[in-house]
């Protein structure tokens, strides 16, 4: 199972590395959104500082839509997902493999975005462990949920427009919990960020379980 997970992850990351979609499109998109938010709120520096966490995670959700759309397109192009089914890879291994690949890409973008908010918004990090843990746990949940919904809409016409409509509301709990945890990590609000991390972990576990159960059926329908 682990070998198949890595096989799928490696394949998706190799495809991403070769197509350079994340590097050439997603990273500039994310940084542009951050800068535009800064332009919009810079007149009131206090509002910008208070909103930094929310803006960061809202941008991550936009990035997720792009990354999941791309991840889904890899399998739907020219019936490629049929190769996965016929090769006999366990659908759950495909799910975790693709989730991991999406998570790695989003995490890479988040690292650059953290640098962005430190430079553009003048934010400061008060708890690096909490900040890193929030990024890691939230990203796994986001990637799992996105991969699952990506498979759900894979067989739908105009899936590129359907995916955000479904995905963004589903990720609302992540936006709330990750923003609160980030508020604590950046010293913006006096909240217990670690307790919000528990909610993020629960979100990830639920989506991983759903993916394990449902991904095979969704892959067949894609």
């Amino acid at each position, binding site marked *: 199972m682990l070998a198949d997970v890595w*096989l799928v992850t490696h*394949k998706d990351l190799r495809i991403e590395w*070769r197509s350079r979609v994340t590097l050439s499109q997603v990273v500039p998109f994310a940084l542009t959104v951050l800068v535009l938010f800064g332009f919009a709120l810079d007149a009131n520096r206090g509002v910008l500082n208070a909103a930094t966490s929310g803006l960061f995670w809202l941008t991550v959700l936009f990035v997720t839509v792009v990354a999941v759309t791309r991840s889904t397109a*890899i399998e739907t*192009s*020219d019936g490629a997902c*049929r*190769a*996965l089914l*016929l090769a006999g890879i366990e659908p759950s291994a495909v799910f975790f493999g693709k989730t991991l690949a999406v998570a790695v890409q989003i995490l890479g973008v988040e690292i650059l975005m953290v640098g962005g908010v430190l430079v553009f918004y003048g934010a400061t990090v008060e708890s690096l462990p909490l900040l890193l843990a929030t990024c890691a746990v939230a990203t796994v949940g986001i990637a799992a949920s996105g991969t699952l919904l990506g498979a759900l809409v894979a067989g739908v016409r105009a899936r590129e427009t359907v995916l955000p409509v479904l995905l963004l509301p589903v990720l609302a709990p992540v936006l709330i919990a990750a923003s609160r945890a980030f508020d604590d990590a950046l010293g913006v609000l006096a909240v217990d960020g670690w307790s919000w991390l528990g909610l993020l972990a629960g979100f990830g576990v639920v989506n991983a379980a759903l993916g394990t159960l449902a991904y095979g059926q969704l892959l067949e329908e894609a």
Partner: protein
Amino acid sequence: MSIVALRDAVVLLGRFPALSGVDLEVGASEVVLLQGPNGAGKSTLLRLCAGLLRPHSGRSVVLGHDLSKSRAAVRRSVGLLGHDTALYDDLTVTENLQFLARASRIELTAVGSALERLGVSARLHDVVVGRLSAGQRRRVALAGVALRRPELWLLDEPHAGLDQGGRDLVDGLVSEAAADGATVLVASHELDRTLELKTRRVTIAGGTIIADVADSDAADTDAADSDVADSDAADSDVADSDAADSDAADSDAVDTDVAGVAGGRGS
């Protein structure tokens, strides 16, 4: 033992009955030609036998597995060449087949011989599949099927888009597979080629099998079968000329692409 045993099989695509009341029994080493007009249900029948579709009703057993219960086991033992090639555009020819080999627990050394068997020249091995012509992609996809040495080959228009050399390779591949004891189901409009390979001819129309003729009886029923095939002959002719044109263009495209690769893009 029957390799394929369908009894009153019904497959619904949405609410549309793509197959209705199909009875088909195919034994080991048989080469069965599926023929019929466009939309008759040939591709659906192949996808059903590959374990990619769930039968709505009836009894469907492939390689000893009931398709309503254990399609995953069937999928591991069949090789399907569909209308699409099921290849990743951004991986090279070798990477695509190595991925398939690893996933199927096959020695990587088999990749080279499969590509060689399908006449995919060494200069294309490190070219990304998205840069290949349609004919070359088809050869690579066929190499992927051959790589797995399946017990049941399911080939949907295997000659489409291939040049004369490629078509001969496909015929050789089918003959070898049958000689090795594999069973082959071929859906094809190219009756002149496929007739030489088959041991049976099954005619489908409207999602139902309307004729099932063994090789020895074929002469008696050629006239009847040709009536069904005729409706597609015109389409097939047009497609053939298109394919010939595109083959010529494709080979040019490959040459150009390869030159481009050599000159710049790495893979």
